[in-house]
């Protein structure tokens, strides 16, 4: 149907000011080849309609419309059209015409041709006559009805007209709501945009009505027309009162047995997939046999009581909702059951653009897996190989003096920033992925960039300065930074370990191990809220070097590169031999000593409830890392982070400055050259040589001697 209407609209648009006459001509000529088909129809139509208004040519648009069909000298007939007559062209007349068209379709098995005539003619009138809106509506109805009848076969004529009224009512409403932008084009029929816009609106409304329901296979358009057919067929009393039951009857009449033998394949929605995965979490307990109970107990020791801390965090107004927390709890249980884990903790959740990360912090028992270490050795070796190969290539030309800055080695696992191992998953029930251990370079770079996490670990991080690694490394670096900044405990809960080689570490001025204080008696909640000095960091501070423990890059480099050129060592001599050791706040420093961010205190403490202070807990919120929280009820404490994984700063992010541009060589004796020897000098030299050739004179300068030799060569 749309195929029929669109070309017509285009034509309208192309020739907006064109009068009826040329149009008619064209219409007539375009129908020339089809006239053979349509002409025989005419006699059939006429008897049926009987003494219709068509018989008086002045009033009947139908007759006018049919003239081009009747005699192909159309222009003469259509020239009798005049605008006043067209103005009287009312919807009812359109209906009359409509009926004819219906008839035509009924009679003619090849309905396409006559219909197109009517369409063209009516739209033609609609174009240049005043009540253009009515016209175009009639037009639209006509089309729709034709299609309908094409589908549904012969129908009662009166049914059609009432149906049209019904639909027109709909459309008028549609117009009302359209009016806010239609009013701009209020001149009815004058601008060509208005009818086309309206037609589009009508078509879209009709398309909506004809949208087939996925359940019953019906559409509202057909349903309404069937209902009205039924009403007009049966002529019930007070039809409006029983319209609901009529509607129901019509629907019942459509009842059909489902005859397809094809079976619907159930759609695999993601919701079912995830439910299937999470089912494993809930089944876990049942699957394990009774024999393994001992092992279970060991494993369960490492499982944190997530629900208890979630309860406290909920008091603080932080948390992920009860069911999600419980799923995470079960996912942690799965993790501890499948890995040799000594201690496990729910670290938090990092939000991403597409997916989120749920992070678990674990400490392995003695057998930490070694794959990770091997992997990194391989990569390091590769790096070395590459650099050597490059150096060997160019022997003769001066080699580059630039050496990449000394790579600071990463800390051993179980120490410093790599003290814990982190596992992440996107959804509870999904597979846990172990994050690689962090290198100082990654931390240093991560401090300079600010990127959103996408939720896929292998995403490359595109940034300036270039980040060494993909999203899993960036995630790991941010976790290290957040942990170092926001993991706090009440004063006295941890104490420094005694048996671990304290003396060695005290030489360095810091100790990096601690243990739980068995004699911890708890702190009053009020004290925890009122004084920040009752909270201490129990994770080591990360130096600006990117490590927790100082690594002296200079000593090491000298040892490694003894065979370096003399020049190099001179350059090094200019640098201080001993870089001052960078020291951060030691372990178990109170957070009251944390740095302020531009007059903003780094921590906010609060009591979870003002109404029931005796059972309230202390809530600590980090202002430096929004999303980091800690609570303590005096005896217990927990930290959690839920957020985007970014540090707060009151100023906006500025990319780091470009590295300094390397200065060129200073223009000195090595760079500048003398002028070319002039003719005089050459002559003088020649003269002196001739003189020297004589045995008597021995006045040669050393330089001249050399020059002489060169010349001889």
């Amino acid at each position, binding site marked *: 149907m749309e195929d029929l209407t669109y070309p017509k609209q285009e034509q309208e648009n192309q020739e907006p000011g064109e009068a009826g006459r040329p149009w008619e001509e064209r219409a007539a000529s375009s129908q020339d080849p089809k006239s053979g088909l349509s002409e025989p129809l005419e006699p059939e139509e006429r008897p049926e309609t009987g003494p219709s208004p068509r018989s008086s040519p002045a009033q009947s648009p139908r007759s006018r419309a049919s003239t081009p069909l009747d005699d192909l000298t159309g222009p003469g007939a259509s020239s009798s059209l005049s605008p006043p007559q067209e103005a009287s062209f009312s919807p009812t007349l359109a209906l009359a015409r409509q009926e004819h068209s219906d008839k035509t379709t009924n009679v003619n098995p090849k309905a396409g041709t006559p219909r197109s005539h009517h369409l063209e003619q009516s739209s033609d009138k609609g174009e240049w006559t005043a009540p253009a809106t009515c016209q175009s509506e009639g037009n639209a109805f006509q089309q729709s009805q034709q299609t309908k009848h094409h589908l549904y076969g012969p129908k009662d004529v009166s049914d059609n007209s009432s149906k049209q009224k019904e639909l027109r009512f709909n459309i008028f409403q549609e117009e009302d709501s359209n009016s806010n932008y239609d009013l701009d084009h209020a001149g009815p029929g004058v601008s060509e*945009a208005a009818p086309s816009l309206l037609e589009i609106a009508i078509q879209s409304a009709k398309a909506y009505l004809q949208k087939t329901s996925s359940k019953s296979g019906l559409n509202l358009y057909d349903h309404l027309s069937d209902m009205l057919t039924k009403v007009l067929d049966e002529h019930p009393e007070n039809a409006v009162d029983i319209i609901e039951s009529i509607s129901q009857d019509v629907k019942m009449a459509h009842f059909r047995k489902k005859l397809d033998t094809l079976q619907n394949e159930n759609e695999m929605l993601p919701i079912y997939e995830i439910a299937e995965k999470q089912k494993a979490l809930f089944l876990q307990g049942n699957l394990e046999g009774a024999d393994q109970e001992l092992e279970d107990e060991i494993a369960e020791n490492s499982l944190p009581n997530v629900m208890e801390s979630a309860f406290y965090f909920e008091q603080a107004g932080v948390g992920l909702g009860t069911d999600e927390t419980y799923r995470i709890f079960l996912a942690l249980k799965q993790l501890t059951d499948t890995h040799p884990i000594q201690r496990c903790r729910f670290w938090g959740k990092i939000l991403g653009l597409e997916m989120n990360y749920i992070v678990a912090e674990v400490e392995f028992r003695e057998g930490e897996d070694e794959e990770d270490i091997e992997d990194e050795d391989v990569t390091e070796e590769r790096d070395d190989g590459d650099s050597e190969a490059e150096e060997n290539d160019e022997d003769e030309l001066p080699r580059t003096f630039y050496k990449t800055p000394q790579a600071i080695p990463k800390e051993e696992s179980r120490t410093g920033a790599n003290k814990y191992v982190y596992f992440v998953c996107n959804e509870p029930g999904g597979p846990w992925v172990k994050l690689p251990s962090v290198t100082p370079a990654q931390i240093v770079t991560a401090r300079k960039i600010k990127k959103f996490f996408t939720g896929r670990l292998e995403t490359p991080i595109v940034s300036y300065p270039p980040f060494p690694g993909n999203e899993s490394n960036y995630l790991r670096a941010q976790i290290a930074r957040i942990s170092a900044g926001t993991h706090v405990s009440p004063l006295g809960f941890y104490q420094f370990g005694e048996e671990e080689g304290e003396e060695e570490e005290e030489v360095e001025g810091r100790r990096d191990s601690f243990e739980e204080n068995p004699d911890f008696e708890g702190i009053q909640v009020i004290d925890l809220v009122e004084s920040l000095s009752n909270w201490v960091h129990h994770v080591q501070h990360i130096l600006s070097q990117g490590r927790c423990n100082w690594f002296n890059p200079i000593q090491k480099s000298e040892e490694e590169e003894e065979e370096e050129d003399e020049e190099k060592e001179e350059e090094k001599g200019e640098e201080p031999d001993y870089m001052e050791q960078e020291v951060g706040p030691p372990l178990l420093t109170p957070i009251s000593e944390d740095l302020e961010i531009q007059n903003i205190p780094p921590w906010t403490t609060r009591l979870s409830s003002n109404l029931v202070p005796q059972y309230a807990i202390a809530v600590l919120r980090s202002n430096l890392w929004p999303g980091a929280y800690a609570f303590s009820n005096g005896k217990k404490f927990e930290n959690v982070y839920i957020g985007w994984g970014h540090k707060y700063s009151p100023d906006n992010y500025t990319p780091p400055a470009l590295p300094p541009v390397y200065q060129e060589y200073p223009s000195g004796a090595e760079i500048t050259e003398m002028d070319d020897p002039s003719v005089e000098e050459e002559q003088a030299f020649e003269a002196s040589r001739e003189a020297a050739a004589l045995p008597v004179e021995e006045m040669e300068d050393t330089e001249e001697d050399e020059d002489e030799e060169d010349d001889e060569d």
Partner: protein
Amino acid sequence: MDAESLLLSLELASGSGQGLSPERRASLLTSLTLVKRDYRYDRVLFWGRILGLVADYYIAQGLSEDQLAPRKTLYSLNCMEWSLLPPATEEMVVQTSVVKGRFMGDPSHEYEHTELQKTSEGDKVFEEEVVVQIKEETRLVSVIDQIDKAVAVIPRGALFKTPFGPIHVNRTFEGLSLSEAKKLSSYFHFREPVELRNKTLLEKADLDPSLDFMDSLEHDIPKGSWSIQAERGNALVVLRSLLWPGLTFFHAPRTKNCGYIYVGTGEKNIDLPFML
């Protein structure tokens, strides 16, 4: 989020870690009912909270019959006593744009801002330092207004335009379908349309005037200022604004449950282009 279905909404929005303690929840349920009665609002929304250094602001909004009419905003520090905020003006936005950093949590706190003002006496031009004092309440008003205008979200079809003009809640709204729920184009800004008037007729051709009378999210600048996620295996769609981090919109497809909540510091993320 609707005050009436607060508990369900909070549970749905909890994926971002933004919750309310049981005490706050209970007191909100009580006090918002009273707010609705006393101020005679048609609908009361719990808007969210702005985290201050000392205390948090809890914000609620009252809607009249026409959903897009200017909303009344109330704030509270303890979730029980609510005070009405004055309507935001352009001046306020300009005035408070110089203030950076976190909210304090004290509405009477005054930010001091020194400005260089040129005064001319005769021929000479002096530069004087003028200290402008800005009340935190003013800043609160303007920030809430900015957030509302920038990132308040409503799914397509949840509101409809009546023939008489006002915009009502659509009772027949049954939620977005799954495929629509994952597209930004099915969500609208919950405010008077701005972009729509600038659109050409051609762009408007496909729009349904009774539903598409607001701006769609998909043309937001910069592109990528929304993160759209299907959580819990498509049972919940969560939109997070990256321009105003802290705003979470949730919608459970095929249900009426939708809403947004803001929990954050009340600062705009102007670093967004660097972070994508």
